[in-house]
């Protein structure tokens, strides 16, 4: 492999070397630099969340709950959830890859509102700092769901500040979504029609719609919780006739679609990787594109399937169960189309493709187990057990994180101009896939056997499966540390990637790597369909 980095021949001017210094980064309005800022901050939050995950799995090694106190454990799983959901998963792909790539994919110089883009990063940083302050000051023990009246009245932790942190964080998400929508409508290069748009952009468009329409609701809901903590009275307070279940309606109105904020961008990445490494156009472009929009819309109609045992009416349960099955259809369509795209391709199993295939497998399992939870006959037994925990980790980690890593590996040469070690990349991909399955498959069995979630101590008959799960988690942790190491080391030692190391077809590959500040020397004019691999080399070249 690349032992001798080519002694940087006179580097072309690009977004990284155009100017230097902290100030040039902190005041930048270049979407690519903001993407890098996001990448760094999100990675940090990922490892904070991962640290809490490690503590959870260590505690559950034994049934007695002997590693930490019950209060500490409750804080640990709450912080794990809050950090991972609001500060890693929701911004992960859109704010890094989306930010970096969308303008380049549509042939624009930047997002529509570059300063708002920077503002959204600052808002993210402010909220993340506030959250870290909360963690340092004893954390919060409500779970990421903040259910009332526990959060408003009974918890003795920093609920107010944590709520405010998520409230602020919401605006970062809203501004990103707003920026993407306007950009995709108004900034496309000549010839880049909607039917030529890469599916990456379609999926991000759907994501942005959810961010814009859903996030304000969680913001106002958490604001109400925060006010209720200060005022000692509020609309969710049963003492004055308020209904705690209304909080759950308002919470899940956002937080269920939020799952699609996490998974739609992953699907965006999938469509790019699978086509490139199969050397094929996507199977059923229009169906994949419309499935994204379908998920975004139907995703808003299903929230109360989180509440089948929460005290909603049986009639509402029927309605929401039915609607929940509707949303499974577009997801199934996507999986089948990706699989069909591989048919008669010329497939090379490079690192990004390994992640993509891992994604298809894990997302399929995650989606299939979702059918159990939508099913009114089964959900009351498995909800609030480890079955649910396993299910949503299959979607969010098996799905979203796999795709995130796949995307980072795919576009790493574009972002940095360097190639990483292919061997280590494959090793990490296998470790993550194996570790993930060993961690979370046993949890399905645990859940059906009846182990409730958020238990600090549990009855002894659940121990064997918990030990398996913890064993898997240690492999998974190793798998996550590896990319951090070899990707960083590639910055110094990696081979020079060249403009288009995968011979990929998108517009972003038609400019140099790393790209110049304004992305293209001159505005491109698009005359071809997306994924037009007919015109591209028939196999993926090897750069080393």
């Amino acid at each position, binding site marked *: 492999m690349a032992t001798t980095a080519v002694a940087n021949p006179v580097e072309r001017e690009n977004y990284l070397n155009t100017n230097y210094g902290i100030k040039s980064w902190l005041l930048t309005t270049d979407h690519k630099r903001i993407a890098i800022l996001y990448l760094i901050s999100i990675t940090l939050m990922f490892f904070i969340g991962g640290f809490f995950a490690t503590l959870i799995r260590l505690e559950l090694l034994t049934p007695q709950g002997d590693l930490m106190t019950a209060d500490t454990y409750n804080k640990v799983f709450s912080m794990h959830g809050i950090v991972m959901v609001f500060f890693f998963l929701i911004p992960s792909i859109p704010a890094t890859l989306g930010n970096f790539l969308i303008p380049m994919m549509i042939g624009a110089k930047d997002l529509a509102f570059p300063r708002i883009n920077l503002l959204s990063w600052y808002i993210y940083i402010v909220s993340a700092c506030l959250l870290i302050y909360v963690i340092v000051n004893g954390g919060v023990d409500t779970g990421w769901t903040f259910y009332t009246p526990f959060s408003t009245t009974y918890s003795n932790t920093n609920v107010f500040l944590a709520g405010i942190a998520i409230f602020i964080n919401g605006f970062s998400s809203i501004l990103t979504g707003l920026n993407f929508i306007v950009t995709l*409508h108004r900034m496309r290069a000549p010839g880049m029609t909607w039917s030529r748009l890469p599916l990456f952009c379609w999926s991000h468009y759907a994501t942005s719609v959810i961010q814009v329409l859903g996030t304000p609701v969680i913001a106002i809901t958490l604001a109400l919780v925060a006010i209720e903590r200060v005022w000692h009275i509020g609309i969710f307070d049963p003492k004055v006739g308020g209904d705690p279940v209304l909080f759950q309606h308002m919470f899940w109105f956002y937080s269920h679609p939020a799952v699609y904020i996490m998974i739609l961008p992953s699907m965006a990445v999938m469509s790019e990787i699978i086509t490139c490494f199969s050397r094929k156009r996507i199977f059923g472009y229009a169906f994949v594109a419309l499935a994204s929009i379908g998920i975004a819309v139907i995703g808003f109609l299903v929230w109360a399937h989180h509440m089948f045992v929460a005290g909603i009416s049986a009639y509402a349960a029927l309605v929401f169960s039915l609607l929940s099955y509707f949303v499974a259809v577009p997801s199934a369509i996507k999986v089948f189309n990706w699989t069909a795209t591989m048919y008669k391709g010329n497939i090379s199993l490079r690192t990004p493709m390994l992640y993509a295939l891992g994604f298809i497998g894990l997302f399929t399992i995650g989606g299939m187990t979702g059918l159990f939870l939508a099913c009114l006959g089964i959900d009351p037994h498995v909800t609030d057990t480890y079955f649910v925990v396993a299910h949503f980790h299959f979607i969010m980690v098996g799905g979203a994180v796999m795709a995130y890593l796949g995307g980072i590996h795919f576009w790493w040469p574009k972002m940095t101009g360097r190639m990483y070690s292919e061997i280590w990349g494959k090793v990490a991909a296998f470790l993550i896939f194996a570790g993930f399955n060993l961690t979370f498959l046993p949890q399905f069995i645990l859940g059906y056997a009846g182990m409730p979630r958020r238990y600090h101590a549990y009855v002894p008959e659940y121990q064997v499966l918990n030990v398996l799960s913890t064993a898997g988690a240690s492999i998974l942790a190793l798998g996550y540390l590896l990319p951090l190491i070899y990707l960083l080391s590639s910055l110094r030692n990696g081979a020079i990637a060249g403009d288009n190391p995968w011979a990929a077809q998108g517009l972003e590959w038609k400019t140099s790597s790393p790209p110049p500040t304004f992305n293209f020397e001159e505005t491109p004019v698009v005359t071809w369909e997306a994924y037009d691999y007919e015109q591209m080399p028939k196999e993926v070249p090897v750069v080393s």
Partner: protein
Amino acid sequence: MSASTTEAVAQHSLQHHFATMEQQRQSTTLGMWIFLVTEIMFFGGLFTAYLVYRTAHPDVWEMGSQHMEFWLGTINTVILLTSSFFVALSVHYAQRGMTKITALLLFLTVLCGIGFLGIKAVEYHNHYKEGTVPGPWWHYNQVENPDGTTRPAPHELQLFFYLYFVMTGLHALHVTIGIVLLALIGLWAWQGKYTAEYHNPVHISGLYWHFVDLVWIFLYPLLYLIANKHA
């Protein structure tokens, strides 16, 4: 868009990543509308809560509405509608490049906004004196019956007032932000920053103010007009 000369005049207002003034104008306008949609959903959470509790306790809601001061609410409605009219006119004059008039109209709007907040403050103070502020300040525990006897106030009355304060409070916050925004835009208009070609900030801040007006158009009947005054 043949007017390349006018675009040359406005060139300094065109940000580097846009190709034309028209693209920039359409982008910012679309951005503002999307922002307004997020605002709809933001208030939407409160309206949902209102809807749920109102359908569950219609009597209590009527009882609560009787504590609203009809005339103060109505005057405030007049003020906000008038201010929206001023803003619409200010955009009109900005389009024609008469930015001094634009500025004056915006300053009038700011005055309206301040008046609105003043009246709102009077109402809040009255509720405070009456004891109908939820939380530690609540001491409205007995309701008078028509025959002069009293009975315990239904505790859902606090829900009504809680929603009243949160909804109008959030609205007042938006009015405050609008006042600051329009004052700044008015100042810049006075200084001649805007022209017939480039005045989109006036336009989109105007959209924001109209939205604040829209919210009030619904708050007014929902809070002030549901009292059963003919029972």
